[in-house]
């Protein structure tokens, strides 16, 4: 799980162009939207593309993203769940 969490953080930094942010700066359990990393709706769409491109997971209903992209941990748990 730790390896996956780190990998997701690196991918999020890369696809969302989070300048001067290191994986260690991202709290695994902090909200990604709102106060956390200050991500916006376009970032949410980009995260949907990330899951599909990197993990082959397609989110059919973008509304599900709200729950899945709550934190880095919820993304990792969703990926693990889909792998089963």
């Amino acid at each position, binding site marked *: 799980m730790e390896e996956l969490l780190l990998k997701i953080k690196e991918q999020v930094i890369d696809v969302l*162009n989070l300048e001067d942010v290191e994986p260690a700066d991202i709290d695994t359990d902090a909200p990604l939207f709102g106060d956390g990393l*200050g991500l916006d709706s*376009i*970032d949410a769409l*980009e995260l949907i*593309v990330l899951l599909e*491109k990197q993990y082959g997971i397609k989110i059919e209903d973008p509304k599900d993203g709200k729950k899945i992209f709550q934190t880095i941990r919820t993304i990792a748990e969703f990926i693990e769940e889909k792998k089963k």
Partner: protein
Amino acid sequence: MENVISKYCIVKPHEVIVDGKVDFSDSENPEYGAFMKAIYKHYEVKYPKYFKMDNLCKVAFLATEIVLQGNDQIKELDPGKVGVILQNSHSSIDTDSKYNDTIKDKANYFPSPAVFVYTLPNVMIGEICIRNKFQGENTCFIAKEFDAEFISDYVNGLLDSGKIDACVTGWADYIDGEYCAMLFLVEKSKENIKDNISFKPEFINQLIK
């Protein structure tokens, strides 16, 4: 009453010129992205969304930041009366091509929303307006080269008709690592301000020579 250039900024490879003087230069960062980042840091811009912008937006945004830096009066104007009128020759073709790269291979078809949102030249104006809360008239004209006569006619018309009280205007273009932004803050002449340059083609062309 005539309209005047209260400040102007030219961003071109290696240097930033403000009101006719080289204000910043950096030959150590010849690559576009590195030079833009050097400008961002030098002028102490604090706006994380900058890093998500495409190449065209970055140069237009930074030139605007420099033109408006330290200008508290612009914040006191009615936001609906501050316009942004720009011109360029390559529209958003740089990002259009990048977006096309994300969709041209049907076997590797991942359209990028973050790239897609920059596939219009007007988006650079949107970024400037969002940052500064401007809500006045705005548009981006495409022309082969900067047309001072056209731009001055258009902007002076807006100012003279009372549609706007101030305008960020000029040229911002990017294609294949070649770029240039020449932005002017144009306002109605004020009695207590002297030595400002009239926003007329003959004077504009002298400034950008």
